[in-house]
């Protein structure tokens, strides 16, 4: 049983990918595609970009699998590749892309409110809470790229500050500073 788990662990699959094992690559993609796409979408907020960038991250895994040393967890290494790909994509973004994204943000805010479940006993409270959540999510996307990445890795992917430091290749105290500043900015964004 333990051997089975060992044989199909991410780290083992990565070693098999380094030996150019297509089946191992397919298995790894099937295992991580949902999470990779969701994280890319949270950072980029565009479905097409999220699909492209998460696929690019898997291709980089294929290309760099031989360099995976195994001293860190595969997930940390993969997150690093993916987050870097997202940040690269953001840096390459042109002004008109940002304008379009801003419009998409407004649509997303609206659709988030619409997506909330039907109001229960106190419709006013429900709508207000949904609007607060939409404003909070919108405020996340006004953070700097590094702060946003730190917040999403912490809040959505449940990584520790040490793991976030490893993913973003920054010192752990810097991650804490990013989180403190992000929280301050989010509070400001939520203030009426």
């Amino acid at each position, binding site marked *: 049983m333990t051997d089975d788990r060992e044989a199909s662990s991410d780290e083992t699959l990565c070693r098999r990918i380094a030996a150019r094992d297509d089946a191992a690559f397919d298995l790894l*993609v099937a295992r991580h595609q949902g999470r990779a*796409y969701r994280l890319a979408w949270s950072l980029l907020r565009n*479905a097409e970009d999220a*699909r492209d960038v998460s696929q690019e991250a898997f291709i980089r895994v294929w290309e760099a699998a031989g360099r995976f040393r195994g001293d860190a967890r595969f997930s940390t290494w993969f997150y690093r590749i993916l987050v870097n790909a997202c940040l690269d994509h953001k840096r390459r973004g042109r002004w008109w892309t940002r304008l379009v994204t801003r419009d998409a943000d407004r649509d997303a805010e609206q659709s988030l409110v619409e997506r909330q479940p039907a109001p229960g006993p106190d419709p006013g409270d429900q709508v207000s809470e949904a609007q607060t959540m939409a404003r909070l999510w919108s405020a996340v996307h006004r953070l700097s790229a590094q702060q946003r990445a730190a917040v999403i890795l912490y809040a*959505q992917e449940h990584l520790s500050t040490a793991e976030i430091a490893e993913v973003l290749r920054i010192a752990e105290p810097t991650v804490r500073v990013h989180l403190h500043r992000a929280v301050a900015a989010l509070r400001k964004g939520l203030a009426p």
Partner: protein
Amino acid sequence: MSPERPDDLTPAERDLLSRVGAAAPAPPEPRWGDYRAQLQARLEARRSLGARLRRRWARPAPIALSFGLATALLLFMLRPVDRRPDFAALDEAVLGARLELLEHYRVVERLDLLEDFDVIRQLDHVPSREG
């Protein structure tokens, strides 16, 4: 949000961040079959590109040609670009042409002195001894 995560966030900060996790809307789900097929196609394209480049660079002729071109370019860029005339050599040539003057060095010396005092240029205006 696991409470055992070591960080120095206050409970209020943790609460706000946990709300961020809850606020994240679900992304539009792609068709995973299409997603994987597209990924495979991209991977194949990348592999064939890599193989093409490896094949190309593995051939000795392009390597030799590229190396030769790079060396020629390097030599062209590093060649001396100082094309100013060599004034010392020019001076020597002029002096060489006037070498016979050295035979009358005393006269040349006096003429030089007179030139320094602007006598030669004003020679026409110098009153004659008779005058």
